[in-house]
């Protein structure tokens, strides 16, 4: 079979904020870029980001990047790499101003500057008063940024492959990444994209959990592609549960609701966060607030007939503030709860939200792995940014407002580094046919006909298992059972059959390949969680309640082969300032 081949300087897989920011940098430098996305770019999940993007602009309260850096290191529970964190926080103001210049419709202050709101985990002067660091476009900041970046890419004439699914990376025997085999969802035809550089920007994997704030497309495709290319993925035990998903349903209610003055209450009407975080209260870090809610519910102070949630009050803020600053979440609550948050408090519960772990990279966006010479050797031709990557700026717990920042800062940085790489690597390397065949066999597997388990049933079982065995609170026995169950389920994948064998817009075949990806990521998550015998950030072990810097101040690396785990040190040395040594984390 002869498969159409196309050649580009750079292949970007994923058209969210990270992919589009990188593509824009490259197109503006006149590199020949292809962006491949399984959905039309503006449908990417960046569109759902609500609260905003952090930068120490000091438009509302005093601020500087060094305070932002301190908060991020502390928020990461000291697992974040301090060189990357310094780089990100230093770049933030410039990056946000660039976005404004590109057209993002930020909300404004009376003096015409960008509006900034308070968000969780933010402080002035290294742990002092609350800061206001989150630049917002109402509560639709992700939408505003994603649409603007897509629009600027139209202007820069970036080449888009809309509704193409990436099957696998192409890799040669020397370890170079040469592009990917992709599938046109519309026609069912595979294509080979040969590229001198490939950037993975495929987003997170919230779909490994049943109740999540994520879109259906967030299936960890890039992480799974990396795993299948023998690249490990890092720190997968750290999964963020957002404190305020709509209880039982999962739709996100932005932290901005608390940033604007909202707060949480239990069934006694008590503002319980005052007990858990005397200083920051409702604006403590997300891991802290999520655990506090879970404890309130577990100890019988939950609300509702089943006592299974708490309430988020914004009804005291007044209709004006809600209309101006939180219009999107008001719509969501009206639509899904048939009530108005201006009048009644919102039932909320911690909900799977963000993958802190991912494909290990350095601060240039280069994918790095131990290849024999050191812990962090670049894999030639491969880059990753955003939620699918782990650079690591979020460490064990991400601060609200730092994910949009992460994708823009490192999307841009990766774009710049790729431009340099292209100058030194001017020619395409010969294609590795064996690697192409391997990718095609992954596709061909789903041509098998007959009766078998269904994709949908197995996915639901996986999601339920991950929720039950790898949730907010974790312990050895339960995690071990989780590992066993996920492995047993993975073995059943071979018996799954799809009933749709059409070429044209076959969504079932896509879902089947997404399910394979979910299994790879879920196994990485639960296996890494079982191994880490301490509590740090979002990873809370009931049996190891303390952080253990002596043994566990290190990153974990999970390999697909034999489900092996390896570890590497945290980069505690920043670029120019003193490092922030681990301290007890109090909010």
């Amino acid at each position: 079979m002869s498969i159409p081949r196309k050649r580009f300087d750079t292949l970007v897989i994923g058209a969210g904020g990270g992919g589009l920011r990188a593509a824009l940098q490259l197109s503006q430098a006149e590199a020949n870029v292809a962006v491949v996305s399984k959905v039309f770019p503006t449908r990417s999940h960046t569109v759902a980001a609500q609260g905003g993007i952090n930068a120490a602009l000091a438009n509302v309260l005093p601020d500087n990047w060094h305070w932002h850096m301190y908060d991020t290191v502390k928020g990461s529970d000291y697992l974040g790499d301090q060189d990357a964190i310094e780089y990100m926080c230093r770049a933030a103001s410039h990056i946000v101003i660039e976005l404004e210049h590109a057209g993002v419709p930020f909300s404004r202050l009376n003096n015409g500057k960008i509006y900034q709101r308070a968000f969780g985990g933010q402080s002035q002067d290294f742990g002092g008063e609350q800061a206001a660091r989150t630049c917002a476009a109402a509560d639709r900041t992700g939408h505003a940024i994603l649409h603007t970046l897509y629009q600027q890419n139209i202007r820069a004439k970036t080449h888009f492959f809309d509704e193409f699914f990436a099957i696998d990376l192409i890799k040669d025997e020397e370890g170079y990444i040469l592009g990917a085999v992709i599938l046109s969802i519309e026609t069912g035809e595979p294509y080979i994209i040969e590229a001198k550089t490939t950037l993975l920007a495929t987003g997170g994997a919230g779909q490994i959990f049943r109740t999540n704030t994520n879109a259906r497309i967030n299936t960890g495709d890039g992480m799974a592609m990396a795993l299948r290319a023998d690249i490990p993925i890092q720190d997968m035990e750290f999964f963020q549960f957002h404190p305020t998903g709509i209880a039982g349903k999962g739709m996100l209610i932005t932290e901005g609701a608390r940033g604007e003055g909202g707060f949480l209450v239990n069934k006694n009407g008590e503002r319980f966060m005052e007990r858990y975080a005397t200083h920051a209260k409702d604006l403590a870090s997300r891991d802290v607030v999520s655990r506090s809610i879970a404890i309130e519910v577990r100890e019988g102070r939950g609300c509702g007939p089943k006592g299974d949630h708490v309430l988020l009050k914004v009804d005291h803020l007044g209709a004006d503030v809600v209309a101006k600053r939180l219009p999107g979440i008001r719509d969501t609550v009206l639509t899904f709860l048939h009530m108005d948050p201006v009048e009644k408090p919102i039932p909320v519960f911690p909900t799977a939200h963000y993958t802190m772990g991912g494909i290990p990279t350095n601060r240039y966006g280069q994918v790095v792995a131990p290849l024999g010479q050191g812990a962090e050797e670049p894999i030639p031709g491969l880059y990753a940014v955003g939620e699918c990557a782990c650079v690591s700026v979020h460490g064990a717990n991400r601060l609200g407002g730092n994910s949009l920042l992460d994708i823009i800062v490192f999307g841009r940085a990766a774009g710049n580094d790729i431009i340099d790489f292209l100058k030194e690597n001017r020619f395409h390397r010969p294609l590795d046919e064996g690697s192409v065949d391997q990718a095609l066999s992954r596709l061909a597997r789903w041509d098998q006909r007959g009766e078998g388990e269904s994709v949908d049933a197995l996915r639901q079982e996986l999601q339920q298992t991950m929720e039950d065995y790898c949730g907010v609170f974790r312990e050895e026995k339960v995690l071990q059972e989780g590992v066993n169950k996920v492995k047993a389920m993975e073995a059943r994948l071979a018996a799954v059959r799809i009933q749709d064998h059409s070429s044209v817009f076959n969504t079932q075949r896509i879902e089947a390949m997404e399910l394979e990806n979910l299994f790879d990521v879920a196994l990485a998550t639960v296996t890494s969680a079982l191994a880490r015998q301490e509590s740090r950030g979002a990873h809370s072990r009931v049996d190891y309640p303390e952080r253990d810097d002596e043994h566990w101040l290190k990153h974990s690396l999970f390999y697909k082969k034999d489900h092996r785990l390896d570890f590497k040190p945290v980069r505690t040395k920043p670029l120019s300032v003193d490092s922030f040594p681990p301290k007890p984390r109090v909010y």
Partner: protein
Amino acid sequence: MKFLIYRYNPEKDQAPYMQEFTLDNIEPGMMLLDALLRIKADKDETLSFRHSCGEGVCGSDGININGSNGLSCITPLSQLKQPVEVRPLPGLPVIRDLVVDMSQFYQQYRAVKPYLIVHDPEPEIERLQSPHDRDKLDGLYECIMCACCSTACPSFWWNPDKFRGPAALLQSWRFLADSRDQATAQRLEELEGAYKVFRCHTIMNCVNVCPKGLNPTKAIGNIKKLMLKRLI
């Protein structure tokens, strides 16, 4: 609950047809998307439709529901008359089942230059914009490009290649209304002619169906007013 769903697979079917499905155990609060997913999981895995975020922000799942365009993920089943007739968005070529080819729609979007154009050098800080000027973008920038409006517009059905359509014109106005944009004359010039704007006959289907409550007709009116002002 009874559903009649438009089916067409170009590899198998000579012509499209409506297929009936019945779902039991409809729970309160269920959206049409939940029903479609259940039908796909339990009744017929070959049913094809687009969807992603499930909360009305990504704009993937615009379809025609009982004759009116909307997003399946935020359309409650409790509001729908039975049997629920589900069809692809009208006026665009059908690829398969509920999936339409949106190329023409996107083409019109690109044609209005939907990006900020500024000729002045970039300042070191953000460009200032008063809250009052920023308010003018509310009701415009929130568009999710679901195509519910343009595919509800008879003028777009007749001239999808020439008439920009309500979604693209809403975006055109979003940039004309932006105090930072400096391409007003160019934008208006490019909208001249009998078709691009003036095929709008204020039928207002676009306003009625917009799932985000936006008002493309008003935006088109504003463009026309501005064009007129330039003439005199």
